[in-house]
């Protein structure tokens, strides 16, 4: 049997290489297995909370800082954030939600030319939209060191969870490129039809808010993911 096996192995392959191939195959099987488990895990949560995936009938709240208090306590940072919107009406409508996504007041940060920030999106999605939520390289590394907490620390709504994530980068095109940072607030999400089932996250990661990420003079978004990432464990959910 051993002889037959040896004949079947291509002449250029040693036994060590064969073992390496087996290892790789095993790794692929394990990756597929964890991906299947993660997909099943999230599908169960989605089915429980939103049987028909009708997201427009859900209520998602971020338990962050009070917008009026921030505006009153930090008028200069508030004004700098307003100035990054194309018009005041849009700032008035959307900035409260962005500020309330953090449980600390946003602070100013500056990117130098060439600096990259990262966005973690569900498999198959991209970063062409206006979403301002990015993380620094350091935060990304921390998240990858704690894969079970990815969704929880980032405060992801159930419409943004996935078995696999794609990581995109955005690059600053200028020096002194203003953005903002805050700590992600806890979140609650429930279906209006079944308000007794609540999906919660504690938040806790530091988010970098790039409100003007659509400005092509200041930022360049990658159109291909830098990395396709499957956390190697099941998520740990705050019950």
């Amino acid at each position, binding site marked *: 049997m051993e002889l037959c096996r040896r004949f079947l192995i291509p002449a250029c392959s040693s036994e060590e290489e064969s073992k390496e191939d087996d290892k790789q195959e095993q790794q692929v099987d394990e990756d597929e297995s964890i991906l299947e488990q993660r997909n099943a895990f999230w599908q169960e949560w989605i089915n429980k909370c939103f049987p028909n995936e009708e997201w427009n009938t859900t209520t998602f709240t971020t338990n962050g800082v009070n917008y009026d208090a921030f505006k009153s306590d930090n008028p200069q940072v508030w004004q700098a954030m307003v100035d990054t919107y194309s*018009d005041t009406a849009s700032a008035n409508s959307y900035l409260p939600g962005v500020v309330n996504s953090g449980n600390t007041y946003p602070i100013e940060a500056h990117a130098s030319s060439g600096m990259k920030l990262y966005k973690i*999106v569900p498999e198959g999605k991209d970063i062409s939209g*206006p979403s301002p*939520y990015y993380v620094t390289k350091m935060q990304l590394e921390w998240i990858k060191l704690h894969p079970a907490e990815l969704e929880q620390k980032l405060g992801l*709504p159930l419409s*943004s969870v996935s078995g696999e994530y794609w990581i995109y980068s955005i690059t600053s095109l200028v020096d002194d490129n203003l953005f903002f940072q805050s700590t992600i607030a806890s*979140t609650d999400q429930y279906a209006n039809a079944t308000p007794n089932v609540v999906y919660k996250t504690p938040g806790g990661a530091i988010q970098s808010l790039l409100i003007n990420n659509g400005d092509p003079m200041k930022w360049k978004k990658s159109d291909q993911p830098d990395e396709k990432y499957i956390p190697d464990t099941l998520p740990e959910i705050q019950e």
Partner: protein
Amino acid sequence: MLNPIREKIAQYEAADDVHQHGLILEAARQYLELFPIEATPENGLEEGQTLVRYLQQLSYLGTLPQYEHEYALHNETLALKVRIFKRCIPSTHSELRGLTELLLGMKEDALK
């Protein structure tokens, strides 16, 4: 004929809540049915401009976490905005209509 559109705009303004964006999208869809070619200063121009302004603001909807990855919603908002904007340009200014498509890099047919 414009009353249902006006009512939805008024409801959205009274709510002062971007989560009620469905009112503006529905008003915009009705507007396109009502004005398949163009609006005029006497009929529909003011409502068209109001809708364009609100649809522009809705382009930030994806900045809220729960709408981040709702690409169909973002695309529909963009398409409605461009199509209504074109209705607000008189057909006598067809070059401007063409420039609208040029600036966006897409034909109206592709937006439907």
